[in-house]
C-alpha cells in the first residue's frame, strides 16, 4: 500500500511536516475515510455492475480468494445474483450520506439549544435542560419503530428520525462548555469593548466551541452510521433494494453459516469506517486545541 510507505518515511522529515501530518491516528483515519468517501463518490465509475441488476444464474458466487471465485465478480454476488462489489460501493454513498446529514442536522439543533441554555442560563436553561432530559428518556430504536410504522421506511425518514434524535450529546456538551466560557475574562473583555450579545456568541463563544463541535460531530457521524445499519438490519432503515451496508448485513444473516463473507465484508467495512471517523475525531481534537498550536 503506497500510503504505508508515506507514513514510514514521515519521521525523517518530521521537522518540516505540518502538525496534522505528524499525528499518526489522524493520518491513518484520514486515509481510510478518504478511501471510503472516494468509493462512494466514484461508485458509478468504479462499480463493474448496476447494483440493482439481479442475475439468478450467478447467485452467491464466492469472492475471488475462494477456489470457485471468478474475476467477473471479485467480491462475489448475493443471494439474488447482484454484484457484491458494486453494492458495497453504492452502499458507501448511503452510509456516508446518512452519517454526514444526520450529524449536520443534529449538530445545528444541539448546538443552538446547548449554547442558548449555557449562555443565557436561568429560566432558558431550565426549559432547555428539560427538553434535553425528555429527549434522553426517548429510546431511539423505539421512536424509529413508531415513525417507520406511521410513515413507512425511506432514506429521508431515516435521516429525519436520526437527525431529530441524535442532538442530545451536542446539546449537553455545548451547554457545559458554553457555561465555562461565558464567565471567562475574555468574554467580559469583549463586553467591555462594546460587543453585543450576538457578537459575543458568534465571535467569542463559538470559535472556542469549534474543537468540541468537531469531536462530537465525528462521534455522531459514526453513531448515525451504526444506527442506520442497526435500523436497516431490523428492517426499519433504508428499504431494499437500496444498497446499504446495514441492509447487506441483514440480507446476509441467513447465509452466515455457509457463506459468511456475505456478512463479514460489509461488517468489516462498517468497522473500518467507524474506526476511521473516531481516529479522525480524536486527531482533530489534538491538533486544533489552541494550546498546542505552533
Amino acid at each position, binding site marked *: 500500500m503506497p500510503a504505508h510507505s508515506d507514513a514510514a518515511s514521515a519521521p525523517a522529515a518530521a521537522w518540516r511536516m505540518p502538525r496534522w501530518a505528524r499525528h499518526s491516528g489522524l493520518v491513518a483515519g484520514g486515509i481510510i475515510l478518504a478511501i471510503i468517501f472516494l468509493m462512494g463518490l466514484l461508485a458509478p465509475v468504479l462499480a463493474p455492475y448496476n447494483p440493482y441488476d439481479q442475475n439468478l444464474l450467478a447467485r452467491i458466487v464466492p469472492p475471488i480468494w475462494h477456489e470457485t471465485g471468478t474475476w467477473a465478480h471479485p467480491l462475489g454476488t448475493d443471494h439474488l445474483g447482484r454484484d457484491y462489489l458494486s453494492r458495497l460501493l453504492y452502499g458507501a454513498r448511503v452510509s456516508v450520506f446518512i452519517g454526514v446529514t444526520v450529524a449536520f442536522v443534529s449538530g445545528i439543533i444541539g448546538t443552538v439549544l446547548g449554547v442558548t441554555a449555557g449562555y443565557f442560563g436561568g429560566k432558558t436553561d431550565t426549559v432547555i435542560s428539560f427538553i434535553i432530559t425528555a429527549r434522553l428518556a426517548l429510546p431511539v430504536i423505539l421512536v424509529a419503530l413508531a415513525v417507520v410504522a406511521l410513515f413507512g421506511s425511506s432514506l429521508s425518514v431515516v435521516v429525519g428520525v436520526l437527525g431529530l434524535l441524535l442532538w442530545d450529546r451536542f446539546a449537553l456538551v455545548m451547554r457545559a462548555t458554553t457555561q465555562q466560557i461565558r464567565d*471567562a*475574562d*475574555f468574554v*467580559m*473583555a*469583549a*463586553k*467591555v*469593548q*462594546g*460587543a*453585543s450579545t450576538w*457578537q459575543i456568541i458568534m*465571535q*467569542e463563544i463559538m*470559535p*472556542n466551541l*469549534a474543537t468540541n463541535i468537531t469531536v462530537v460531530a465525528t462521534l455522531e457521524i459514526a453513531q448515525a452510521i451504526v444506527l442506520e445499519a442497526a435500523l436497516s438490519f431490523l428492517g426499519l432503515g433504508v428499504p431494499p433494494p437500496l444498497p446499504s451496508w446495514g441492509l447487506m448485513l441483514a440480507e446476509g444473516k441467513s447465509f452466515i453459516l455457509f457463506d459468511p463473507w456475505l456478512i463479514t465484508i460489509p461488517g468489516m467495512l462498517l468497522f473500518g469506517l467507524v474506526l476511521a471517523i473516531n481516529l479522525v475525531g480524536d486527531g482533530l481534537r489534538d491538533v486544533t486545541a*489552541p*494550546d498546542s*498550536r*505552533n
Partner: protein
Amino acid sequence: MLLDVQDLTIDIPTASGVLHAVQGISFSVDEGETLCIVGESGCGKSLTALAVMDLLPRRAIRAATSLAFSGRDLRGLSREAMNRLRGDRIAMIFQEPMTSLNPVFTIGDQMIDVLRQHRKVSRREARDRAVYLLDKVGISSPEARLAQYPHQLSGGLRQRVMIAMALMCDPKLILADEPTTALDVTIQAELLRLLMALQQEFGMGLVLITHDLGIVSRMADKVAVMYAGQIVESGTAETIFNDPLHPYTQGLMACLPAPERQRMQHLKAIPGAVPALVGAIEGCRFRGRCAHAQPVCERDVALREPAGAHPYRCVLPAETSRDNARAVLGAGA
C-alpha cells in the same frame, strides 16, 4: 467633568437578603486626571467600575442621582448606545491578563476587531494602528507579535497587549481594575509607569482600582478610600497621605512596611474582618475593628468635610484624628 458619579448604590438580592454592595458613593474624574479607588477585597471597588460600564451581574440593581460621562447621562442609555460607548470612549483593563484574551484568535485579530467594531476603517489601517500601539506599550517587533496567540505571550506582555487594546479607539476614560495585581513586582512598576505616560500623552482620565497603597502614592491625583461599600475618606493624594483622618486609612498606612522600622518587627494588621453587607446595616461600618469606637458610632455616620480638612466619614473631630494618626504612624505622619 469627564466622569461624574453621584450617590451610586448597588444592591444585589441574594437568598439570605439584599447585599448592599455599594452604598451611595460619589466621585469624579477629569481629563488627564488619575483617581485611585483604594480598599480591600469585597469593599465594592470592582462593582463600582462595572456599574459605570453597565456590566453588573444581571440581578444587581444600580441607582445613582448622577452617572454622567462627558456630560452625557449614562443611566437612560439604550443597550446599543452603551455598546457603542464601551471600548470606544470608555475602555477597561482587567486584573487577569492570562485569561482576558480569547485563546483562539491571534492578538492582531483581536486588536483589529476592537477598532473595526467602532470605526469604519480598513483592516490595513486597523493593523497599522495595532502595530503603532504595540510599539507604544513597549512591545518589541510588534509586527511579529500580531500573528501570535495569547498563550505564546507572558503575563506581562499580555497585560501590555490589553493596554494597547484598550487604547485602540483612543478612549477618553480608562477604568483599570487592579491591572498589575497578577504580575510580579518589577513588571508592575514598569506597567504603571507606562500607564501613567500613556495617560499623560493621550490626556485620558484614569480610574485605577487597587488595594496597594504603594501604587496609589505614585499614581494618584485623587484618592477615594472605600470600606464596606462606602467611601470613608477622599481627597487629593497629598492630603490623604500626609493627613489621613479616618481610622481605617490610618490603619492601612500603619500596615505598610516602612524602611525605618526595626528589623524583625511584625507588620501591623487591622484586627477583625469586613462586616457582612447583607440585610439592614446601621452605624459606622468600621466600628467593629476601630480602636476609637464609641457608643455614638452605632448611629450612621455621614461623610463630612469640616473646615481645614478633606471629606471623611468619622465622628472624631479632625484634631483628635490627627493626634491618633501621630500615635499610630509615628512622628513621620
